[in-house]
């Protein structure tokens, strides 16, 4: 049996980047999960913002994260947002990166019964096409 969120089952919408967000998607294509980090106060922030919410500095870098963290929460979705695109069940998740920020993502390669809040997870880039890779997570070391 395929695992709960086996990626090829979905026809995911392609992201629509802006010049502001292009470095993030360049990163996923290169196998890096990048998050903005303030160059003045070192605060990591997600979702992306022009200025740091801590110090209002607009100086930032798209810093490479380790792509690892813990499962903050999850839900096994039984009613698809769009049955033409997402096959149920799939697992929507929030992951807390080791660097601090929380990301909305999918948990893949994990049976629903084996999911536990707090479990260690790592990013598994999923290729949509030549331009875009998205960033679901899977159990660490799995």
């Amino acid at each position, binding site marked *: 049996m395929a695992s709960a969120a086996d990626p090829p089952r*979905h026809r*995911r*919408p*392609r*992201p*629509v*980047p802006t010049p502001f*967000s292009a470095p993030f*998607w360049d990163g996923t294509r290169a196998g890096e999960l990048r998050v903005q980090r303030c160059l003045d106060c070192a605060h990591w922030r*997600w*979702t*992306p913002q022009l200025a740091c919410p801590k110090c209002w500095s607009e100086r930032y870098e798209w810093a490479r994260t380790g792509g690892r963290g813990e499962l*903050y*929460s*999850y*839900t*096994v*979705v*039984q*009613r*698809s*947002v*769009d*049955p033409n*695109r*997402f096959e149920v069940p*799939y697992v*929507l*998740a*929030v992951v807390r990166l080791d660097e601090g920020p*929380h*990301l*909305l*993502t*999918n948990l893949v390669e994990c049976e629903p019964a084996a999911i536990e*809040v*707090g479990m260690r997870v790592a990013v598994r880039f999923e290729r*949509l096409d030549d331009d875009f890779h*998205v960033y*679901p997570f899977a159990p660490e070391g799995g």
Partner: protein
Amino acid sequence: MALREVAVVGVATTEQLRSSGGRYGLSYGLEALKGALADAGLEKADIQGLYPMIDQWPQTGEANPGNYLHSNWPAQLGIPIRWFTGAVNSGAGTGASAILDAAAAIAAGYIDTAAIVLGMAASTPADTRTASWTSQAIQWNEWTGTYTAAQFALAARRHMHEFGTAPEHFAQVSATIRNYGHLNPDAVMYGRGPYSVQDVLDAPMVADPLTRLMCAQVNDGGAAMILSTLERARDLRKPVVRVLGGADQLSYPAYAEPPLLEHALGEPFSTRWVDDGFAMAGLTRDDVDVVELYDGFASWIVMQWELLGFCARGEGGPFVASGVMELDGRYPTCTDGGCESFSHMGAPALLRPLEAVRQLRVETPDPCPGWEQGKHSHEPGACRQVRDPRIALGVSMGPPTGGGNFVLLARD
């Protein structure tokens, strides 16, 4: 500049129904606005301030708030608008935030009378399976297959993890609220109950732990409310409901940020806004007789009790399980059937405070033979009118990403 006191002088709702077959939300809104003016005994020329929310202008297909010029409203209504704001506040522009903003404008003397108008035909588009506008075509989110119920489920799961909250707690919320709607002939889900906790748990799973009966449906309909000075209200035809105060706090954007439980419960910002709202009204939680929370999802009700300080953080599950929301409980809640059973037209922010007004006026249709004369049995399971309520709390906070708003209303 001396502040004036403010009252709700007119309310109306249209029929609330599934899939009305192409009628514009604006049409529902206009019908409700006429109804609220008639309820107040006022005319359209009396309206000076406007707080509208419609899902589509026929001319452009845009929603309002949206890109279409707000100044189309005078062209549509045939009256000038002297105060047009509030749409940027939380509560989708027509909820408790709009009431507070209108009250501020009236109190300060900028205008004498304001109208809040809501008209949505959200269930008319072909695919009614989920509220598509909350999937937010945001590049960080859309690829994940996220949508409203799933976002609430994420916060709910975290609440269960941190505090031991159980699906039975959420089911209790929905059974209680849906059983009010079962008694409300105006409710979309009128006569569908009664529901047990087990019925709610046994419903098809949407996004665990939320079953279909823990989620609001989507339907069409309109609602409107007219506010004016207390002085003028006392000359009008309906029982006077005063606006005593409230509060509003914007936090993170709806469905764009990851739905963190901490944000739902008010972090990282201060929750002092809640205490401030009660303080300005000169009230405490103990003074409240009836509560209209925003029950888009059952789990969110558990969190609202905590956010609003009616119980300690993490205690929302046992709090609702104690029966506090029942008609004979301490805080009868969502007495019209709420978003889950009465109506959820996508962003029905006005409906919660509007039911608070009807409770204070004792204008609640239910099986009691004398309801039109305000005579009720107050028998749980047979009646949905709270006995002699004086203070009502109306809440219009929708998304799971923080912030909120509420208004405290009082019978004069």
